[in-house]
């Protein structure tokens, strides 16, 4: 078992119900009965006494139960049917301590069928949290994080050994001569280190909203936006790691000091190495450290133009999830590579380069490209991005969207003219 490090410093606890399930056949009276039995499971094992406060809604108490859906003002939104079922706050002095929330989008029942969720089972688990227990990896234990179906008759239910030991560690055993448990105050988590002062980078707070990124890359499920000597980073859920940018050379160790622009970046599919292109050279990173032997010349990639000229830069690079191939763009043309086997010297697929115009509807001189979401290709240019749906190079019309607003938590763009549709310059754009 695992303890949260928090407990109630009293054994007489009160509880109340503030709302009831709206999508289930369980009546309010049945809900109260099931919750009372769920609390009794814990008070059978430890010297705890639970008393329900009269009057729903207005009643307070130590453990306040409610059925809520989606965002419900505690910072931990529910997610609709399935997924997360419930949560509870550990004991303490905070206003929310002991609060226990059930997702109202679930179909709650008591010993119902497979399409329903057993309220008693989940309530025993959540009250375990409200009393100070964390998730357990033991089997059997009601504190396992995953829902595994009804535990049976409420009148017959007894906690498993792992759960009894956990609650008794906190509050002692019922009938014990020493109230308060073996260790009245459970061990606390180590105190965090004092914060070290961080030198903040120079760009202004809102510079991320100016668009025109040198490179954009999807690395390990996060999107990195590079501009100048700095980068911003967004998580999969759309939130920024920080509103302030980080210095590229402080994070990506091994790039030359004074690096103030990168041309393109991508994560190689075959070995998760990260490739940086700057001018006529490229660097390969293992996580955030450059590998020995780099930089290497761009000529390794054997990208030549029809006139035989060697390239001096890469404009954009990405792995298209649609086919797993790597695409490098330069000077209005692109080359395709199959990197599934080899990681040494690259050789473009035959028939390349081809013109960027083949990516119909996309900007021909893009800042960068990434694969995101359901495998769609996202082209970035200036303040906008275009989404090319999975696999299709010839989409009729793709409307540009505002990068800052959608990716970097920026306010909406001023009502100025949108960029011309790069594929069909004569067509009007009313998207903005």
């Amino acid at each position, binding site marked *: 078992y*695992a303890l*949260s490090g928090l407990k109630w410093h009293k054994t007489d606890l009160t509880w109340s119900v503030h709302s009831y399930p709206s999508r289930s056949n369980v009546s309010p009276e049945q809900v109260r009965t099931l919750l009372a039995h769920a609390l009794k499971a814990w008070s059978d094992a430890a010297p705890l006494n639970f008393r329900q406060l009269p009057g729903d809604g207005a009643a307070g108490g130590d453990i306040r139960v409610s059925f809520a859906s989606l965002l419900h003002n505690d910072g*931990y939104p*529910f997610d609709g049917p*399935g*997924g*997360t*079922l*419930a*949560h*509870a706050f550990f004991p303490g002095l905070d206003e929310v301590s002991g609060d226990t929330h059930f997702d109202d989008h*679930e179909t709650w029942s008591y010993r119902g069928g497979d399409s329903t*969720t057993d309220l008693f089972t*989940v309530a025993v*688990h*959540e009250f375990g*949290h409200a009393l100070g227990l*964390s*998730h357990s*990896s033991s*089997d059997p234990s009601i504190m396992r*994080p*995953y*829902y595994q179906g009804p535990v049976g008759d409420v009148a017959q239910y007894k906690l498993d050994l792992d759960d009894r030991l956990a609650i008794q560690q906190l509050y002692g055993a019922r009938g014990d001569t020493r109230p308060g448990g073996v260790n009245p105050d459970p061990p606390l*988590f*180590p105190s*965090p*280190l004092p*914060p*070290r002062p*961080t030198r903040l980078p120079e760009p202004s707070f809102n510079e991320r909203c100016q668009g025109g990124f040198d490179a954009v890359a999807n*690395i*390990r*499920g*996060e999107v990195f936006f590079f501009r100048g000597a700095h980068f911003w*980073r967004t*998580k*999969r*859920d759309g939130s920024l*790691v*920080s509103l*302030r940018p*980080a210095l590229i050379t402080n*994070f990506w160790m091994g790039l030359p000091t004074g690096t103030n622009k990168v041309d393109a970046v991508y994560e190689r*599919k075959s070995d*998760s190495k990260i490739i940086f292109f700057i001018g006529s050279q490229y660097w390969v990173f293992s*996580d*955030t450290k450059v590998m020995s032997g780099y930089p290497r010349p761009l000529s390794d990639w054997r990208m030549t133009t029809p006139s035989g000229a060697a390239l001096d830069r890469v404009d954009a690079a990405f792995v298209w*999830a*649609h*086919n*797993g191939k790597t695409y490098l763009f330069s000077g209005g043309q692109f080359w395709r590579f199959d990197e599934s086997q080899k990681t040494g010297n690259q050789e473009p697929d035959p028939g390349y380069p081809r013109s960027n115009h083949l990516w119909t509807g996309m900007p021909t001189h893009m800042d960068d490209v990434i*694969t995101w*979401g*359901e*495998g769609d290709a996202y082209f970035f240019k200036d303040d906008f991005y275009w989404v090319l749906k*999975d*696999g299709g190079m010839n989409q009729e019309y793709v409307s540009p969207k505002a990068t800052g607003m959608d990716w970097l938590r920026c306010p909406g763009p001023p009502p100025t003219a949108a960029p011309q549709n790069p594929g069909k310059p004569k067509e009007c754009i009313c998207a903005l």
Partner: protein
Amino acid sequence: RAAAQSNQYSRAVDWLSRYGYLPPPDPLTSKLQTKEGIEQAIRVMQRFGGIQETGIIDSETLKLMSTPRCSLPDIVGGEEMRRRRRRKR
């Protein structure tokens, strides 16, 4: 298929972060999730969930990740504990 895999991987990383198996991105240290770190997190998640430890997002792991569950994280304060252990060593 490649698109589905990419999306699956990304969702799995999100799931591992949400339930405490991967440290959340920290604006002060700004660490990048490493390939090895993600593999190790998958192993811990598999061990915690009582399924075979493979370190890869296999069908059993995906099944467990899609099982209805409590929203509280499984690993609380994991990163600080790991830091302390390293310092002690």
